[in-house]
């Protein structure tokens, strides 16, 4: 393709968008809305994954021992666990310390504890750290199988819940995205169809004087791709703005929720949206070119 031919295609595409301003804006906006929602879900899932990862790598295992286990046996048990694979560190937390922690948590309401009448109902427990997050489950299960271990707790539940949320968010995102993308494709197709219609005389003459099929088609493809890309740019800009706003305003209020704040990572995700928008536009124009541009 010669540069002047490419320049010609671009000029024609821009002229067409200028002619059907209303439809062009509607189509680009639909693309923008679809991609905004897609992008929101993308960021949501990215963050949920990130949070899950952070939680998972921080999890400690608490192995509660039988209430009546002698302290000596407990210490021996701690050593036994420390010798296990994947275990980085084990600390025996005596029941007295456990009670103190409870006391701190209850604060003023220590009368609740007085009701216990001096008896400590808590068991000793082992606080276990693992060498790598993937080992949590294996270690927890091994420890749970030991004689004298009453119950094992670890972050499993939180992480599991989070993953099931991510799972649903994904499906929800996918569903709404497909629906919205379809309407975006549809609107782009209608817009391009209007252009084809407005230019049918021109197309006719181009055929008589020997323009190639692709010479005739390219401006229409470009028009659709422009519409898609414009919508994507709008979506990315507003997503980026919204996200930065949320991170800087909500982030500090929820210090215990780690968020992806690295703008490079965020931008990399959003770059996909530009591609998706262009693809949606290309698909829309392809449909119209195929159906209405009989060359």
């Amino acid at each position: 393709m010669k540069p002047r031919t490419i320049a010609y295609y671009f000029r024609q595409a821009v002229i067409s968008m200028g002619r059907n301003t209303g439809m062009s804006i509607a189509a680009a906006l639909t693309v923008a809305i679809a991609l905004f929602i897609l992008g929101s879900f993308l960021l949501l899932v990215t963050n949920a994954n990130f949070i899950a990862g952070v939680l998972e790598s921080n999890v400690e295992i608490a192995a509660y021992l039988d209430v009546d286990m002698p302290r000596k046996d407990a210490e021996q048990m701690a050593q036994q666990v420390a010798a296990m694979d994947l275990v980085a560190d084990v600390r025996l937390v005596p029941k007295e310390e456990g009670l103190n922690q409870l006391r701190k948590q209850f604060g003023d309401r220590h009368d609740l504890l007085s009701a216990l009448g001096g008896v400590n109902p808590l068991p000793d427990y082992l606080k276990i750290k693992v060498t790598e997050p993937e080992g949590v489950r294996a270690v927890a299960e091994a420890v749970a199988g030991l004689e004298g271990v009453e119950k094992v707790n670890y972050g499993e539940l939180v992480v599991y819940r989070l993953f099931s949320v991510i799972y649903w968010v994904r499906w929800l995102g996918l569903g709404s995205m497909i629906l919205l993308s379809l309407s975006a494709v549809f609107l782009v197709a209608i817009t391009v169809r209007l252009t084809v219609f407005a230019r049918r005389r021109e197309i006719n003459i181009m055929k008589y004087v020997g323009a190639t099929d692709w010479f005739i088609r390219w401006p229409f493809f470009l028009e659709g791709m422009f519409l898609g890309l414009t919508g994507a740019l709008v979506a990315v800009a507003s997503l980026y703005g919204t996200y930065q706003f949320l991170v800087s305003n909500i982030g500090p209020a929820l210090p215990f929720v780690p968020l992806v704040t690295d703008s490079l990572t965020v931008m990399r995700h959003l770059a996909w949206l530009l591609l998706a928008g262009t693809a949606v536009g290309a698909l829309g124009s392809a449909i119209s070119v195929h159906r209405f541009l009989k060359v």
Partner: protein
Amino acid sequence: MIQFINVSKVYPNGNKALADVSFQVDKGEFVFLVGPSGAGKSTVIRMMFREELPTRGQIMIGGKSILRLRRSEIPILRRNMGVVFQDYRLLSDRTAYENIAFAMQVVEAAPWEIRERVPQVLEMVGLSHRADHYPHQLSGGEQQRVAIARAIVNNPRILVADEPTGNLDAETSWQIIHLLNEINKRGTTIVVATHNREIVTTMRKRVLTLEGGALVRDVERGTVRREA
């Protein structure tokens, strides 16, 4: 240059437009295609630039069958053939100059070629002084001359015209025919479908007569026979 061999055409709706039509037009000829309304003149013209395909028979242009052309070869055929219609088919939002330049742009001619060639053909059709006029600012005859300029700007070897004078008065019609004759003298093969008896009779060119889809006469230096 143009060969129709036993060409028949039945339109998809069942209309029988042509039946077993054979003729040959040599390089540099000027041929009139006449016959009553519905005889199949436009169908013949449309088949020449492959707007329609025959139902049966063979069509050769420049010694090559145009029936089995690949899609990508059709533009090449059309670049070798100028087409002119009764209704001019100019783009109303472009000037005479731009309408002619458009035909060069779409075949990817260089800007310098366009700047050189368009004024040449404008002068040839006698419209240099109308270059910047839009179609609605031109008379019918002038519009048709712009259309002819557009048809020849890419130097086609063949020019086909379907009732080019159909909307014009007698004097303007003659200007158009003389222009076509001029183009023919420079070596372009020309086929003109027309109803205009006076012109055909006076010009004394070869005349192909169609009636009810059949070729009934092929006369050198012919006239139009008055039908009963």
